């Protein structure tokens, strides 16, 4: 069975705002499947006594004090922006509401 379906690839492409043609969907679904199957081999090694992990280093509570540190000037901050207006990043309109927070 495929690790990722053609429909799932289409869904991901839509979420990523990528225009993908029907032919590309076939290609990418196939390629991604090979990659995922390879990664899935790790799962065969994982046993019940090995908890899932998100960090390879056993560290906790790395915190900083609440002290202001100088950041970038607006000029520096905007220097890499594709477009700028009124000292703000200018981006194309996104047809959605604020989805976060």
């Amino acid at each position, binding site marked *: 069975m495929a690790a990722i379906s053609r429909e799932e690839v289409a869904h991901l492409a839509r979420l990523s705002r990528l225009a993908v043609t029907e032919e590309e969907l076939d290609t990418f679904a196939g390629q991604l499947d090979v990659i995922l199957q390879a990664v899935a081999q790790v799962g065969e090694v994982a046993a019940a006594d090995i908890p899932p992990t998100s*960090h390879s280093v056993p560290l906790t509570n790395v915190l900083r004090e*609440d002290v202001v540190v100088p950041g970038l000037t607006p000029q520096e901050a905007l220097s890499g922006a594709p477009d700028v207006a009124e000292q703000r990043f200018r981006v194309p309109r996104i047809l959605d509401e604020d989805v976060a927070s």
Partner: protein
Amino acid sequence: MTTTLPAYDEVVARYEPVIGLETHVELGTNTKMFCGCPTDFGGEPNTRVCPVCLGLPGSLPVANKAAIEATIRIGLALNCSIAQWCRFARKNYFYPDMPKDFQISQYDEPLCSEGYLDVEVGGELVRIGIERVHLEEDTGKTLHVGGATGRIHGATESLVDYNRAGIALVEIVTKPVPGTGALAPEVARAYVTELRDVLRSLGVSDVRMEEGSLRCDVNTSLNLPGEEWGTRTETKNVNSLRSVERAVRSEMLRQASVLDAGGRIIQETRHFQEDTGETRPGRSKETATDYRYFPEPDLVPLAPDTAWVAELKAALPELPRLHRRRLQEQWGLSDLDMQSVLNAGAVELIEQTVAAGATPAAARKWWLGELSRRANETGVELADIGATPAQVAELQVLVDAGKLNDKLARTVLEGVVAGEGSPTEIMTNRGLEVVSDTGALTAAVDEAIAANPDIADKIRSGKVAAAGALVGAVMKTTRGQADAKTVRELVLERLGAQG
């Protein structure tokens, strides 16, 4: 939609509401959640940014200890369990308000969970379950331009300011609250009010709804008695305590009218309209929201040890409900009187006025009387009226010393509200002090007697009640700056009558 809405009484007689609230609080830390950028409100666009909050390649976030502590304290104040181990998560989405294309949040491992907050509604205690309290980062501000209205519809591009992006944001989510019936809107408001007071007492945020440091989303559903809970809608854009109440009520009415007509409620996000008090549908989600949460690999897990949590718990301040109960006893108020103090938003103001030397009765009189009346007339919060507790206490000192009578004190207070200075300054500058010079008063009394011989005769013949007219005349010539009781005594004395 021009459907006539059913009456509220009918709606709550037929349906049972279930409410739920999600509240976002911007923490008042000096720096952002994961970088050292300052957080002060305002400022030119993109002046409080750095590689971390701009998501530039190679930058790494480090969590702010003060924000973690503030969140644990909120959790403790809300009777939550504090996680012994938890992680941040990436919430992925494509919208330019976060430059990283994801927001660092918490997902299935919130820092605090399973608590409650007791709120008082109509003298009854209602326990609101708290599902979770978690930490995340706030988003940037987008300005939609190119369209005619500056709103997102019709805009052709967005301008983004990342000053707010990365500010520590705490999300507090209640469990669904069933069983409040007709009181549902009031319960929602009471919860947000109490939560705001708790947060303020903890000193973790300035909790100003108007400036967006406290933001509220309200979930509402209706069901028939005995049936399963209905489909809920989420109302956003609720920016004042009054709006919380109105939003629940209006959504209950709208849903009832849909259900009455045999329709179904759609699970959607709606926006509260401040002007009409109604909710409007927002854009429905393109597909089922898929944020592809995963543990944030750039941050290590958080494991607050028991000693740290115990230390934070021991240092919690007295919580508002207990604090209010103590004040009520100290001030000797009935439940009803205390309720009117609460409704006026005057608890702290009276408390501070008493601390500045006034008696509780005098402090309450000014804040609930003259100042509340003016606040209502001008539509501002009592706390923003322009008079400080210290000034009110000073005013009362002048009254107690006999320098101001009640009427003059009101005039002085008007001056204070208008920003003319301290009560003493206003009294002196405007010459409002009570005329205590008996010589001057006697002259005014004699003048009044001479001008009203008929009345004077009546009083001489024993009709003491007629003295009022002469007192009035004297008050008029002294522009109200005399003590009426003293004037009356003088009038009777000059005419040889007995009071």
